[in-house]
């Protein structure tokens, strides 16, 4: 009897070990990727390069954190890039016309939240599929950006003269780029929201089984709408970092950013079907994409090939994920 039990226990231990290891899959991939890059070009490990990499990752990271909540509910938000463009253009316009930078940016981020809320209402009250709803708002917000900017970049002296404006995108704090610090702060806040508060439990429950969540008394529509609001806020926050780095707002900014954000979430092990995944994985996913970009630049792979490689890496990640489930 005792020996039988111990066999079962060993199996159980192995299983839990396996699940722990498989949860670390994205981290492992990141380490392997970093080692490979270092082997081909040791300057990858140069502190300046690493800080640069983190700064490059920060914009995608911010958007992808918000996208994680959306995808955990089984939804998708294709409008993140367009929200980024519209709200950053609005804030840039305010700054060039004399509104204090922080207020202008705060207003931009609030508008980002409202635009996300519009997505949420179309999806919950209107019953539209998230893919279609956000596809439509993506073109609407993008179009609005072109109308608003007349297709021209927004730039001006006020931007270059504002210390705060310059600091957000290009500044350093104790040697760490400010965008990286913003990313880390956002990560901590959203991590707590997702893993330590009831909002996170509701988010997972929505993605796991929306009907069961509803019957369990979770206010499905309200929770979901808030999640799209978060996605909008994170997108416009990323937009603020972007205009500061570029010293201008571009009407076509953020085109295709939704794809990088979704890729980061999926590479981080979050299931597109919802209900399963972690925001830590998204951070790692964003770092994997950043390392790929950075590494391929260092090695000297043409940017044409880079897209192909990124696509292949995503396919491999998804196939590994499917095998793990089976």
């Amino acid at each position, binding site marked *: 009897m005792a020996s039988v039990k111990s066999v079962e226990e060993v199996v*159980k231990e192995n299983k839990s070990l396996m699940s722990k290891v498989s949860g670390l899959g994205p981290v492992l991939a990141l380490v392997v990727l970093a080692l490979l890059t270092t082997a081909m070009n040791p300057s990858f490990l140069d502190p300046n390069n690493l800080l640069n990499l983190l700064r490059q990752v920060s914009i995608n990271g911010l958007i992808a954190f918000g996208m994680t909540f959306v995808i955990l509910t089984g939804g998708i938000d294709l409008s993140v890039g367009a929200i980024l463009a519209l709200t950053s253009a609005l804030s840039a316009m305010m700054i060039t016309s004399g509104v204090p930078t922080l207020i202008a940016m705060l207003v931009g981020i609030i508008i980002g939240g409202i635009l996300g809320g519009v997505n949420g209402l179309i999806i919950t009250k209107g019953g539209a599929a998230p893919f279609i709803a956000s596809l439509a708002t993506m073109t609407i917000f993008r179009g609005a950006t072109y109308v608003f900017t007349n297709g021209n970049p927004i730039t001006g002296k006020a931007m270059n003269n504002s210390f705060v404006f310059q600091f957000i995108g290009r500044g350093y704090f104790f040697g760490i780029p400010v965008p990286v610090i913003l990313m880390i702060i956002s990560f901590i806040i959203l991590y*707590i929201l997702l893993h*330590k*508060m*009831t909002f996170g*439990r*509701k988010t*997972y*429950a929505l993605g*796991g*089984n929306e*009907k*069961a*969540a*509803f*019957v*369990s*008394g*979770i*206010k499905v529509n309200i929770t979901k709408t808030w999640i799209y609001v978060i996605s909008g806020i994170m997108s416009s926050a990323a937009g603020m970092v972007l205009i500061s780095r570029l010293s201008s707002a571009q009407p076509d900014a953020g085109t295709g950013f939704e794809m990088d954000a979704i890729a980061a979430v999926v590479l981080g092990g979050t299931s597109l079907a919802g*209900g*399963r995944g972690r925001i830590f994985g998204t951070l790692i996913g964003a770092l994997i994409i950043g390392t790929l970009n950075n590494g391929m630049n260092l090695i000297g792979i043409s940017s044409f090939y880079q897209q192909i490689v990124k696509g292949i890496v995503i396919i491999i990640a998804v196939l590994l994920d499917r095998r793990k489930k089976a």
Partner: protein
Amino acid sequence: MKIDMIGISKSFGKNHVLRYVDFHLGNAEVHALMGENGAGKSTLMNIMTGLLKADAGQIMVDDKVVTFNGPKDAEEHGISFIHQEMNNFGEMTVLENMFLNKELKKKFGFLDESAMRSQTNSIFHTLHINYDLDSPIGNLSVGAQQMIEISKAMMTDAKVIIMDEPTAALTTSEIRSLFETVNNLKARGVSFIYISHRIEENMEIADKITIMRDGHTVNESLISDTSIDKIVTSMVGRDIGEFYPDRHTNYGNTMLSVSHLTRVDKFKDINFSVKSGEILGFSGLMGSGRTEIMRAIFGIDPIDSGDIKIDGKIEKISDPSNAITQGIGFVTENRKDEGLILDFSVAENIIMPSLQELVKNHMIDENTKDSFVDLLIKRLTVKTDGQNISVGSLSGGNQQKVVLAKWIGAGSKILILDEPTRGVDVGAKREIYDLMNELTDRGVAIIMVSSDLPEIIAMSDRIAVMYEGSLMGIVDNNEKVTESDIMTLATGGKI
């Protein structure tokens, strides 16, 4: 055609579902297959139809050994399975459904509509039925769809038709015409395996009966040699008398009362109340509006008119979250769909309605959560290897206990149980009944919707019976009430 299954065994992991089961189906006979949920009927039938492969044993068709590698193989031998949940596509027409994935084609892959029409019409003719081939199948009654399923089976030249709970959603007259068709086809040499929980029905339609329990065949006999009592005893494995606990009743105040509750096309003018400490049974056929009333009370579906009073005060219940605040809990009839998130852990499921209670300083307090879940797991004797095991890996009975734990944890004062013991094994059933007694002793008011008549009669203090959206009456459950009294009301009759 005759089929012999000999020494069939099947296990899923450690769970032995079938152990050396024998099953013999004769030519042109109607063979009832009975057993509690989880006895292994579905697995046996899935093996017969090639959906599952047996670990051991043989299948013989007309004394020749066969192997089925998939449903297609079984179909080629003339075995056809009509599932309880019919695989119809409601938006597609009757004709399209008839030939789905078996379309007749002309040259170049064009559909041969006229051939399909005439073939369907000739089958309808032999079955004495007539439906518009061009209307969406979803517009037809469940009974009509059942007939079309039989037509589909006939089209594949079925010699054996397996029917799983075919009458669960049928009206009395539809049941009549189904039986006529079955007898009709039997006369033409077709055999039926008839799976139904309704014993009386089996006695009427079947020639032979096989009873399964816990993965074994416990009894095979001619219908003429058996009786309802014998069938029940061999199904449960002990005398039915001890299957249900005694009820002691001690009523308090009226907890919930509804008046003139109406939802158009679902139920009309419903009036009832339930007291603290009372179990009110809700009986009626599927689709009679029982579940719909409960969904409306719980705020899942809207009501068109009428009042819901809780503790004597009229309350407007807009959604489940609101109902939970009013102290209502709802164990839905569909555990997998609405009761649980199967991929999630026991703990994550249990805390869902009680999230707010576990918050300290804006965050979920892990210690409070752990002890809360532990307490409920112990109290309901959920057999699990821990809080973090996924609910989907538990047995049906333990899954149901997790659903109950959700609502007991949420402190529900009014508990609505919709088919609380469906898909639950015998032992866990008894535990659920005991739990219901314990809850009513503590003053909880319980409404139990159930299609299981013996259960309704054994556990309810009063029985409300529904028929086509109307409440036919509420019967005081004294010793004199019989299953046939309830059935009479449930089919529109009077007692």
